[in-house]
């Protein structure tokens, strides 16, 4: 008789296409949480997600205060100068209380934990980003096809953020 199939998750392939702080943290916490459970994880940074791995930009990621109904701020007010910075500051202070690291430290933790970090070649070309603008922890600049190839195997889940 065949053995019962092992249906546990073996690998999480996360695609990060955005650079709002909430999306970036969702992605990082999922990737790190996987490693903590003994699950492999890899992140493919594409489009605006590339902001999260650029040395000069990753410290300036923000919460979106307009077009975000969950902020409970009227759109006109959300667009005022300083609103994004204020909301971001408040969220960062709450996260620090929960021991959630800032973006740069989080990337170091992910890399040390064995999470693979990939940058999307097409988006790099599109935004004219050179590899030396990226953090050192990036494993490589790859194509979508490369990313699919790395997703091979049973128990792989892919998620777009």
């Amino acid at each position, binding site marked *: 008789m065949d053995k019962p199939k092992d249906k546990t998750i073996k690998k999480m392939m996360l695609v990060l296409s955005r650079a709002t702080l909430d999306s970036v943290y969702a992605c990082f916490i999922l990737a790190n949480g996987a490693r903590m459970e003994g699950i492999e994880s890899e992140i493919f940074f594409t489009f605006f997600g590339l902001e999260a791995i650029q040395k000069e930009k990753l410290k300036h990621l923000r919460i979106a205060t307009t077009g975000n109904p969950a902020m409970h701020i009227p759109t006109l007010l959300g667009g005022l100068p300083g609103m994004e910075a204020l909301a971001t500051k408040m969220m960062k202070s709450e996260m620090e209380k929960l021991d959630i690291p800032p973006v740069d430290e989080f990337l170091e933790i992910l890399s*040390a*934990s064995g999470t693979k970090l990939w940058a999307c070649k097409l988006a790099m070309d599109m935004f004219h980003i050179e590899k030396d603008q990226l953090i050192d922890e990036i494993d490589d600049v790859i194509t979508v096809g490369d990313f699919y190839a790395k997703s091979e195997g049973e128990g792989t889940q892919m998620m777009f953020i």
Partner: protein
Amino acid sequence: MNKTFADVVVDVNEEGYLTDFSQWTKEIASEMADEEGIELTDEHWNVLAYLQDQYKNETALSIRKIGKSGIVSIKEFYTLFPNGPLKIASKLAGIPKPKSCI
């Protein structure tokens, strides 16, 4: 639930974590490590002692705190206890499974 380690019966939960830290012994940790396929070295014991200290101080554990502990780097931590270092190390240390997501 009961489980026997090194000829001693101890109380464990359904995931195999000791429910009474006072029952923990090094022999129990060694047998648990065998089950996880880990051979305990001095580095492992240092980490277990650190976790137990944190538990006694009622400090919540996270991967970030481990990395800053000066006891072990995050990379080494994953090498010492593959397949989920914080939960496995906590189990071997006889302390509850951490509820942390980070």
